[in-house]
């Protein structure tokens, strides 16, 4: 029989203040407290990086009518021994190519190759926001053995809703 539990489930504008609230929810959930330390730290890391990713790639959450019904979403749930981290946000269609490239790349690489890529990206002297986003996805990929699943759902000619799902063994 399968058992499932929701640790965090949030939909709405995410500001820096929201992050503390979400992290508190995660930390105070019983499942989180009962996890072994390595898994707990991995879940925490993937959760923070997922939120950071929404900040980096997400559309400004105000002054935009399209945001209606397409607010950022973040959730953590457990199904049996697996944890599922889901994050979604509206993105500019111009960013889809870059995001797809980076996601496919980290999904293809094994841990050793991910570490080489990590070193290459962390040492690259360029715009911090660009390298930051690359490092975030590499960090997430290093914390899980499974592929990062993702999808883009077109909202209009200029925007799509981007969702990503990461599975972690508990």
């Amino acid at each position, binding site marked *: 029989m399968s058992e499932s539990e929701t640790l965090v489930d949030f939909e709405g504008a995410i500001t820096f203040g929201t992050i503390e609230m979400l992290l508190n929810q995660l930390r105070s959930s019983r499942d989180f407290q009962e996890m072994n330390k390595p898994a707990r730290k991995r879940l925490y890391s993937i959760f923070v*990086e997922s939120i*950071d990713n929404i900040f980096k790639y997400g559309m400004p959450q105000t002054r935009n009518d399209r945001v209606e019904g397409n607010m950022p979403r973040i959730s953590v749930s457990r199904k049996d021994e697996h944890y599922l981290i889901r994050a979604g946000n509206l993105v500019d269609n111009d960013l889809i190519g870059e995001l797809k490239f980076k996601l496919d790349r980290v999904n293809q690489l094994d841990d050793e190759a991910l570490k080489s890529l990590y070193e290459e990206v962390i040492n690259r002297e360029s715009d911090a926001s660009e390298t930051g986003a690359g490092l975030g996805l590499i960090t997430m990929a290093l914390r899980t053995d499974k592929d990062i699943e993702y999808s883009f759902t077109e909202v209009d000619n200029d925007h799509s809703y981007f969702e990503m799902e990461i599975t972690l063994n508990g």
Partner: protein
Amino acid sequence: MEKLTIESTLNSPRIILDPASNQFEFSGESRPENVRNFYMPILEWLEAFAGECAGKGKGGGDQPLEFRFGFEYFNSTSAKYILDVFKILHNIQEAGTGIQVKWRYEEDDEDMFEVGQEMARMSGLEFEYVEVEVE
């Protein structure tokens, strides 16, 4: 040099850089709202300190400076700046002042141990690893 101390917050680490008492420490969580703004003064302080060390031509029989790192967590954006810290420390060492890095990580936190090994490899410094019991 004037010491630099920064108290920890929920999302930023505690930093002590105090040559007078030979205390150098980074600890806590690092995911500040503006990572660059948080780390720039620290990197600038270390660069100035590097210049001071080089000027003194310290080394030889002197005790190495002990830098203690005890991060519970840092996000990927912070990692870039933390690596910059180690690169400056490596330069200080290359210029003749001994540096000893103690990388503390919580018991069973294999990822933090591994991140330390990567930081050591990428910066060219040797770390001493200290597993710390918690609770």
